[in-house]
């Protein structure tokens, strides 16, 4: 059996989406900027995608900027918001468990004269509202906090954060990295005080190289990528029409019957945790309670067994997972998220992430549970000295 449980790394493109993408590469392949009919057709696909995505957020179509993916969205939002607000102050707040596309962007801003506060998280990987409140200052210009952590699935109360920030000072911009949560939750940026929201396409069954940034129409900043002035000048470069149209369709499909799909994932997650945590030496990281965790991410530590060995042993049986968070590179590096939740030192290198998608079924989860347990029983005695 093949059982792909690495959906937080990337997902399979849905067939309808792939078909549409293919059609836009081979038939309706125009450049939206071209004045002729083929160009107009392409432009209409981009418009359609913009409408589809705006509908999922109850946002305005012009608030959607298409990018090359989550990393670009995060860079565009954080860097350009910071520079746009520079005259009001130079203090930025983020958390200690952000994805590298946020944390390394923050580092870049620090090198450019900004001051960044990194909020701690509790043992469940949650940023506390009280900590955020304490960190806000008169010179704070931007807050960037992820909605769902990519490694352990902890869920942040972003609507509460939005209120706190806007109550303190409505001019502070609030950016949310929603790369792991979009398509799993209903998000209403306008009601949650969110000014900027990053989304990646390939995490929601759209092609790699697609993504968008929601930018509230009242926010104004300069582009990161300069050129022919496409997308109202916010993001130059000929629109990646096939990927954009695919992203629009994938977004729509994610939000059709959203509740049913997330309920299914939640049930599988609960079933997995229940069956796994009974084994000695196996522990679950992050919130156990389904209400405080993303429906699709499960972080599991195996005492005495290196995560890489578990990963490759599962791979031999057709089960694909991540070691810690392998989204960024092959290099085994110690996870900042796991450090931030004060995970036992011996478990840092022994943690594996299983991540689901809406199509996973119970049979697959049972297969994954049984094999994981079997592998653990076989290999745990071969510890390195």
């Amino acid at each position, binding site marked *: 059996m093949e059982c792909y449980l690495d959906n937080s790394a990337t997902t399979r493109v849905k067939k309808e989406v792939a078909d549409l993408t293919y059609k836009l590469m081979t038939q309706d392949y125009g450049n939206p900027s071209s004045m002729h009919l083929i160009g107009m057709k392409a432009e209409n696909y981009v418009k359609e995608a913009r409408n589809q995505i705006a509908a999922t957020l109850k946002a305005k179509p012009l608030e959607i900027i298409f990018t090359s993916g989550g990393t670009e969205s995060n860079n565009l939002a954080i860097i350009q918001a910071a520079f746009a607000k520079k005259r009001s102050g130079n203090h930025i707040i983020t958390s200690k468990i952000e994805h590298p596309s946020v944390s390394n962007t923050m580092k870049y801003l620090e090198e450019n004269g900004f001051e960044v506060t990194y909020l701690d998280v509790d043992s469940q990987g949650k940023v506390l509202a009280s900590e955020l409140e304490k960190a806000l200052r008169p010179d704070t210009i931007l807050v960037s906090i992820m909605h769902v952590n990519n490694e352990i699935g902890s869920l942040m109360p972003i609507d509460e954060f939005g209120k706190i920030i806007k109550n303190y000072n409505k001019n502070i911009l609030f950016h949310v990295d929603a790369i792991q949560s979009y398509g799993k939750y209903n998000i209403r940026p306008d009601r949650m005080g969110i000014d900027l929201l990053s989304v990646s396409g390939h995490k929601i069954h759209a092609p790699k190289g697609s993504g968008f940034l929601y930018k509230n129409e009242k926010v104004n900043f300069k582009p990161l990528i300069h050129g022919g002035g496409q997308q109202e000048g916010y993001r130059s470069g000929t629109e990646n029409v096939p990927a954009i149209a695919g992203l629009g369709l994938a977004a729509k499909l994610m939000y059709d019957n959203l509740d049913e799909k997330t309920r299914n994932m939640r049930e599988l997650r609960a079933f997995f945790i229940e069956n796994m945590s009974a084994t000695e030496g196996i522990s679950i990281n992050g919130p156990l309670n389904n209400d405080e965790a993303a429906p699709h991410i499960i972080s599991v530590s195996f005492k005495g067994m290196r995560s890489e*060995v578990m*990963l*490759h*042993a*599962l791979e*031999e049986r057709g089960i694909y997972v991540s070691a810690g968070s392998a989204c960024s590179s*092959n290099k*085994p590096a110690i996870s900042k998220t796991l450090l931030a939740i004060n995970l036992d030192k011996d478990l840092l290198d022994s943690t594996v992430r299983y991540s689901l998608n809406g199509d996973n079924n119970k049979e697959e989860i049972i297969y994954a549970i049984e094999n994981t347990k079997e592998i653990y029983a076989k290999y745990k005695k071969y510890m*390195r000295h």
Partner: protein
Amino acid sequence: MNYKAFLIKYGEIGVKGKNRYLFENALLNQIRYALAKVDGEFEVTKEQGRVYVEVIGEYDYLDTVDALKRVFGIAAICPVVHVEDSGKEALFEDVKKYIKETYGQKEHTFKVNVRRARKDYPIKSMELNAMIGEQILEAFENMKVDVHNPEIMLNIEIRKKIYIYSEEIKGPGGMPVGTAGKAMLLLSGGIDSPVAGYMVSKRGVEIDAVYFHAPPYTSERAKQKVVDLAREISVYTGPIKLHVVNFTDIQLYIYDQCPHDELTIIMRRYMMKIAEHFANENKCLGLVTGESIGQVASQTMYSLACTNEVCEMPVYRPLIAFDKQDIVDISEKIGTYETSILPFEDCCTIFVAKHPVTKPSLKVIKRSEVKLAEKIDELMKTAIETTEVIEVK
């Protein structure tokens, strides 16, 4: 400059008495193999003890020289200019043009060396030497003749066409692969073993290789890395038959049964046994390893004595007295370094004890190995039977 041929000079082959033709033929084969990957059509010929690469039509000069620089047995590569034989006056002009384009007006000493492969050419070599020398002296005021120790040896060969050459590009030396039998290289993902393979191959030895894979401890990427390394050295050694042995069960069994500080030594003894098995199967005359005295615990003189003891076949260790930096330098030169340092775990480091034995005694090791008696033969058999063979070229 429009070079249309290369004269290949070979070093040591020249001195090999009656077997010389075997060495020359091997060299021709290796040159053809190396040039097969270069754009262009080439004819490789041997005549009167000289090897020529003739170019037919368009070709890529730099790629051609690069490929030739990797053929063991070549001492030097001389790019040759062809001119038509249209009488001596035309030849003088061609020679002057050649000197001008190659050396400009710089100050040099030179000597002319005419060689008539075609004896019906009307002027004798000695006379032509003097005539051409005079022409050059007249046309280039900074040129001086030095017949004993010239900076430029201007060679002119009268064949169907006339060949002019004076430059020499250094080749890798060594002996052509295929003249010294075959050896089985123990190839890990590290820096040393590819260099060891390269060095032995430089003496004319064909190389096959064996790699010990230990899933799930080592990944598919680690295996790919070894395939890539084999491909990188195959540029020099020719095609390599790479044996990928699944070693996990043997390793875990040793872990179960033997003292942990002896794991590496015992494991390496079984690796040598398996490598020797495949060496025999492939008619190899020896094993090659990248070991160097004292580099790690398993490479002390004591440890080497223990691992060596299991083999009946000679084990060649070309790096035995090299410092690590010297090995790194060679791996950078031959182009394997960047691949070697990719960070994937190899099977030797999985169970390394904190304090492995550095002075193992053969008696003690053998006593520990008795504890493996029950299953080891079966496990070895399975490992050999399930070995995957990858043809790398």
